[in-house]
């Protein structure tokens, strides 16, 4: 659903702004309410549907400016938001059921098709682990040419982007609740019994919780918090499996993986053409490295505070990242976020003008 694209956009904005989930949700809610209201007022003023939506977005202003004014985005990162602002316009139009931007197809397909044309390269995920950790599962999934639904980034996506329509835990155990979440979003899961025993975690505690439309990851965090504040239960994703264990066992081993980001660099070039006055100077590849370092777990790179000494460098249009497995998951998730908005960026922007 195109509504999702709008959410993706706000999610991405949140990443850049380094907000916590609560603040992000609050800003999303507020901006969303504003857009709804503006569209309604425009309709009431006699505008046609398409015009009402377009005008509301036009009045909303430049998302890069928005990010800038929220105060925490660097000059070099603004191009992402320029690109995604255009994508958000398209997504919004799609959400409102606007047709006729292009002949025949909805804006969604039109966007993707054109991006594919422009980029001339497949946009399938291109993470290629240089060092495969354990598990036959991982090897198996990498063997297939399509991205399997159980790769780490996909699992992370399902947890963060999915929705649990209804949660009715009445005197359930924490463990049963976690199983429910994993099954609802269809991801493999495993309880690391040894780790849990070691920290004395008790997942058989009873909980009662009734919620609607909740993000799976948020629900997972709620359940884990129920196990006690200082117990140290945590979750992680490895080899496409959601693992519930101890936070001390989070992986510390670093490995190199290469990510092909030629499509994202092409997106930048495409955006630069659409933005009057261009995007300013600066080497796109250097910018990309800087941004990645800053957006994904900034404390985990060389010189950071977390004890992990990750590193990255760019070879052509490939970025080689030396990091722990869980941070690789975040890198993939970030790249996928960018791609999900990039997929609607290129063509329809000109149509929307």
């Amino acid at each position, binding site marked *: 659903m195109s509504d999702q694209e709008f959410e993706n956009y706000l999610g991405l904005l949140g990443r850049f702004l380094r907000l916590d989930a609560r603040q992000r949700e*609050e*800003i999303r*809610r*507020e*901006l969303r*309410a*504003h857009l*709804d*209201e*503006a569209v309604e*007022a425009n309709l009431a003023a006699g505008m046609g549907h398409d*015009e009402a939506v377009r*005008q509301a977005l036009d*009045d*909303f*202003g*430049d*998302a890069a*400016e*928005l990010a800038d*004014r*929220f*105060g925490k985005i660097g000059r070099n990162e603004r191009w992402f938001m320029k690109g995604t602002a255009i994508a958000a316009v398209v997504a919004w139009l799609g959400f409102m059921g606007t047709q006729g931007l292009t002949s025949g197809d909805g804006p969604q397909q039109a966007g993707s098709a054109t991006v594919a044309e422009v980029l001339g390269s497949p946009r399938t995920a291109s993470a290629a682990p240089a060092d495969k950790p354990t598990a036959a599962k991982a090897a198996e999934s990498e063997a297939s040419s399509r991205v399997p639904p159980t790769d780490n980034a996909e699992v992370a996506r399902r947890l963060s982007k999915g929705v649990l329509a209804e949660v009715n835990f009445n005197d359930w155990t924490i463990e049963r609740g976690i199983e429910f979440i994993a099954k609802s979003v269809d991801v493999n899961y495993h309880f690391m019994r040894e780790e849990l025993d070691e920290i004395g975690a008790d997942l058989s505690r009873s909980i009662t919780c009734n919620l609607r439309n909740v993000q799976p990851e948020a629900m997972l965090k709620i359940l884990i918090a129920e196990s006690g504040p200082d117990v140290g239960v945590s979750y992680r994703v490895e080899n496409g499996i959601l693992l519930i264990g101890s936070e001390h066992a989070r992986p510390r081993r670093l490995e190199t993986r290469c990510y092909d980001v030629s499509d994202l660099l092409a997106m930048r070039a495409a955006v630069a053409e659409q933005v009057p006055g261009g995007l300013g100077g600066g080497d796109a590849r250097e910018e990309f490295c800087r941004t990645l370092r800053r957006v994904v777990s900034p404390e985990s790179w060389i010189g950071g505070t977390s004890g992990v000494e990750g590193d990255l460098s760019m070879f052509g249009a490939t970025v080689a990242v030396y990091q722990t497995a869980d941070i690789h998951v975040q890198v993939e998730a970030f790249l996928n976020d960018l791609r999900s908005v990039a997929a609607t960026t290129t063509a329809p922007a000109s149509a929307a003008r």
Partner: protein
Amino acid sequence: MQTPSKTSDSTRDWLRGSLDLAVLSALSSGEKYGYQILAELRRATDGRIDLKAGTLYPALHALEAQQLVKSRWDDASGRDRKWYSLTAAGRRRLRDRAREWLEFTAAVRRLLESALGGGDALATPPANG
């Protein structure tokens, strides 16, 4: 589509220094949500201050962080809305900054009048007195 009175470039420059003041002013008559604040600013300035939402919300959040405004969510109006209002500190800030601003603009006005040779050149009285 083409609204007649879009904020001009020079107005935008002036506004940059007084955005907070404008937002605080819009809240002085009572609690409002973002969309209403924009409408109020447009109305009260004959469209000269026509902010983008992308400008307003970050400003509101910054004011809230400084505890000059406070907010609450309420859907009693039939729609989920975040309502902002002035705090006591916000009222004080508005009063102080307004005084500074008025003194400053009065000084600039005297400067311009002398530069343009007396009252005649600036004879157009301020709109709506």
